[in-house]
């Protein structure tokens, strides 16, 4: 590393006395080409992500409606947001959904990864089948499932006289969220399987042979060997899927449209509604609250990964 820095240090030493050059050397004491490589990224990133973020945080302290003038109103939006049942319910649904979907996705993916890594026939073919949902649009998959869950399943349930499914669960405000969990997991499971498979491949098969010789049952092998060895991958999967599920939008739009009523309205949906309802500044306050929840979770993620000594 020191050797590469050499040419750039020479550049710095060669630098003249002009104030502009001194300023440049203070901030980026390297060859100009490197600056050309990094500055576009910095400028675009600042302009398209950081600037809107700061601007949004500022609007959240006003009564801005999306156009025209605005007045500074302090933390009134935040106070109102905390007292707003619609917003509270959207957090309730989103968190419940994210936790349950994360658990379901991980459990199913781990079981399938172990099955797809064992000595089964047509293993490559089965892997292809189970990976497929990963590349499909969540929105369109949801539209397909809307018809299956909303129309086909009740007809089948009616034919076999299975009462709980005779009416669409998507129309039931207490059960609709389960449909969202199912479809969101259906889309997310393949990615999790791939990560678990990467973990399983790294476990040497000799370990299992030794365990079978010692008479360990399959369940015992799972609880005392496979699961502990897969634990780091379980953490990665939990973080990745939870993060994705917190921003749930496509599946809800496709499956329930946020309903029945507002039973499955996610936080992202509530924020976006700020456009259409004129609650611009109000929903920006909601977005800032959402940011802090995401941040809290991301910091937790970083600390977990750092403890593992990972590179992320």
């Amino acid at each position, binding site marked *: 590393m020191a050797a590469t820095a050499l040419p750039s240090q020479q550049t710095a030493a060669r630098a003249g006395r002009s104030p502009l050059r001194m300023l440049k050397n203070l901030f980026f004491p390297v060859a100009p080409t490197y600056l050309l490589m990094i500055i576009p990224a910095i400028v675009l990133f600042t302009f398209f992500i950081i600037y809107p973020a700061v601007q949004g945080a500022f609007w959240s302290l006003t009564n801005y409606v999306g156009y025209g003038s605005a007045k500074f109103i302090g933390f009134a939006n935040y106070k109102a947001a905390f007292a707003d049942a619609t917003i509270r319910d959207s957090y309730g649904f989103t968190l419940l959904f994210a936790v349950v979907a994360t658990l379901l996705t991980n459990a199913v993916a781990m079981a399938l990864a172990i099955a797809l890594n064992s000595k089964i026939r047509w*293993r*490559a073919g089965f892997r292809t089948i189970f990976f497929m949902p990963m590349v*499909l649009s969540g929105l369109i998959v949801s539209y397909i499932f809307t018809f299956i869950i909303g129309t086909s399943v009740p007809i089948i349930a009616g034919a076999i006289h299975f009462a709980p499914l005779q009416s669409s669960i998507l129309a039931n405000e207490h059960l609709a969220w389960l449909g969202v969990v199912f479809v969101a997991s259906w889309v997310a499971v393949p990615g999790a399987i791939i990560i678990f498979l990467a973990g399983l491949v790294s476990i040497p098969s000799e370990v299992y042979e030794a365990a079978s010789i010692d008479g360990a049952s399959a369940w015992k092998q799972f609880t005392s060997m496979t699961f502990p060895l897969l634990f780091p991958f379980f953490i990665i999967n939990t973080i990745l899927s939870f993060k994705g599920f917190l921003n749930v939008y496509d599946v809800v739009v496709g499956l329930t449209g946020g309903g029945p009523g507002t039973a499955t309205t996610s936080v992202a949906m509530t924020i976006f509604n700020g456009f259409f309802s004129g609650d611009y500044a109000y929903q920006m306050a909601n977005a800032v609250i959402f940011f802090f929840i995401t941040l809290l979770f991301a910091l937790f993620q970083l600390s977990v990964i750092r403890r593992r000594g990972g590179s992320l």
Partner: protein
Amino acid sequence: MATHVTTAPVAAPLAAARRRRPAPEGGRINWGLTIIVAIVSLVILIPLYFAIAMALKSPAQTGAGTGFNFPWPIQWGNFRTAWDLTNTPLAFSMSLLVTVIAVAGEILVSSLAAWAIVRNWDHWQFRATFVYLMLALFIPFPVVALPQVKLTSALGLDNPFGVAILHIMFQLAFNVLLFSAYIRSIPVELEESARIDGCTTLQTFRRVVLPLLAPIAATVGIFAFLQSWNDFMMPRLITANPKLQTLPVVQYLFQDQFTTNFNVAFASYLMALLPTLVVFLLAQRWVVSGIMRGSIK
């Protein structure tokens, strides 16, 4: 893993053939588990069969049934109707436009930035830049969506170009992470010898570094392709003109008209799903190893 990707065009069929021969390596085949896996795979296959069956029927054939009945005689006309109704070629072009710009842009912007950062890690300015770019990991789209819509429309970027730019920006942090982890594993000596031979910084990057980055660039490209092609949130909110919408958003916009004929709707869904599915089936090895590399890093 890395060699698979770089040499894949030649090696992929070979590797596939090699993989097939010594089935599950040694030992007996677990038939019980095979049957269980086969049954569970129906959870994936049945919805896909359902979508295909629906797309190939007339409303009369669907009737008041479950939709699972076999489509006969097959109604290919549904695809034609959906094609004309939703103007599939236009939506497809928009999806392609967003995806191509996003894939190329993500690879270019993040590889350049990552290389400059890693090779100047001794300077605090570059370390600070790295940390600064990583901020994006903590900012999901919904948080900045409202101001971004105003910003892009003020700039005249409320179109596929704006969507592609935002895709590049939101993935920047993750891509820089992937690239910089990979660049750290490339020996500096290669670049030094290029410099001694008289290469400028840019030439060194283009002729020496970029070719070495091919495997990780493939990973970034695959992620970018899948995300940009399937994204619904950003194009829906950013693109103002419905005529310039991507395939998934078009399915959303046509929901009202689809309710009169579900079979045409499913034909339209299938056409929208097909591109990623075909790419996946053709390049499964790359996609899977790319995602593995991307998520483990």
